[in-house]
């Protein structure tokens, strides 16, 4: 189990990179403080006694629908493109990747 108390600034930066959120050094320190406090609270989840795991289906059931076309191709394209910041030749335009 991960130890929240041992969390460091470099961990916060790693989480932020994973979540694709830019954080300043100042915010990272604040986040570290907040997350350490929260994680020390949720540590009880790691420590709580649990009975031996028995995997059952319980009252769960599959939710399926008819295998039919509900949206004809292109029916919503224009409405969806209208929300996008940049569109070109029927594609969403994005920044260069490399």
């Amino acid at each position, binding site marked *: 189990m*991960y130890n929240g108390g041992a969390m460091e600034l470099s961990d916060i930066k790693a*989480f932020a990179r994973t979540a694709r959120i830019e954080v300043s050094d100042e915010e990272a320190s604040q986040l570290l403080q907040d997350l350490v406090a*929260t994680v020390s609270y949720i540590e009880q*989840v790691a420590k709580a006694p649990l009975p031996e795991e028995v995997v059952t289906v319980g009252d769960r059931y599959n939710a399926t629908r008819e295998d039919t076309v509900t949206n004809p191709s292109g029916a919503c394209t224009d409405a*969806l493109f209208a929300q*996008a910041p940049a569109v070109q030749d029927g594609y969403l335009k994005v*920044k*260069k990747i490399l």
Partner: protein
Amino acid sequence: MIDLKNISIETAHAALKAGEYSVRELCQAYLDVIKEKNPDINAYLEIFDDVMTQADTAQKRFADGTATLLTGIPIAIKDNMLWKGKHASAASKILEGYVSTYTATALENLLKESPVFLGRTNMDEFAMGSSTQTSAYGITRNPLDRERVPGGSSGGSAAAVSMGGALAALGSETCGSIRQPAGYNGLVGFKPTYGSVSRSGLIAMGNSLDQIGPLTRTVRDTEILHHALSSCDPLDATTIPMDKRVPTPRTPTMKIAVPSDVMKGEGLDKEVFDAFLVSLDRFRTLGYEIVPMDFTYIQYSLAVYYVIMPAEVSTNLERLDGIRYGYHAPEARDLADFYSKTRSQGFGREARRRILLGTYVLSNNGEYYRRALRLRDEIAKELDHMFESVDFFVTPPAPTLPFKLGEKMTDPLAMYYSDVFSAPANLSGCPAIALPTGFTAEGLPTSVQLTAPRFEDDKLFSIGKEFERVLQ
């Protein structure tokens, strides 16, 4: 003059039917209140520009005899519910300018009856918060004491009703976001059995927990709205088919369970505890026996919630990247930089905090998350077991009275603790209702919360109505 203080869906319906006033006049009465109070209270982020067109549509149904209970009823909707052609932002900058391309099923269900949706209400950003102070569009004040919070995250919806700016409102819950603000505004707030109301078109926070429910002045209004909202929806596979919504058979016991530590007032504001004891006496007056109980797992609910919710939050909010809709960073080097800048500038502090917490709990092979899921099952089982010997489970909806604006904002854990009594119902899928119980000497509203077994939503309405009667 229409008496907006003592109005209900049924009395408004009767008056509209009898022609005592028109739908336009009813809507105008609310718009006048909104114009006077909203600039300071900020319950609404937007008043829809077609309120009177909606009113005319409703009026026609009174003329042609097809009007039903909700026809022409002015309702406020939370800013995380999609209505085609209207803005919806979940009070976040990252959805600034977003226009809904379809309508939430729950709203569609109401629209069949031609109500009037007055506008969209303020909330904590992406429903993350218990005080409506994390909105990107300013805080909402509590109409009953403007220096205090209205609760959250459906604080705008609660304030809209309590300031007299809507007959009823729709809110949504992931963990108490209807019940707690209802309690803070002297209103009825209801979280239905998970799977009874469609989440299609509700901007997701924690999919396995989210439900839409009403905030109203009376239990009957909540009952009417809930029955209209509820459906099995092919667009939300977690909605439960009507024929499967069958409660486990049980014999009524006339008993209500209360956690022993709550019975001793542990962790509660004194005023909250005092009011709670009075409420317990009222249930006794109704013939119920109050049974203190100790639990093995229920006390882990909030901690379990603060693992499951951020895990779902961090995955849900991944889709907001500025490419397809909403806010996008004006300057960026490349695609990766564009994502990071868009998300950093678009999400507020609490959203960023929870996304990172979710990223953390899902790391290490998701060990935390898996344990939380197992505990969640145990909590649900423990509640099930408890309901073999009692009819309801009672606590206050929140441990404190409405707190001061600005309070708890620098201490996330203190804010999270507001949800402590909400979590069991959301984790187990059980329905729960917050009922107003009166006011403290200071004039702040108090409330009591009842939880029932899954699919026994109607029993909460029955006991809620009985409770209202003894209160009067």
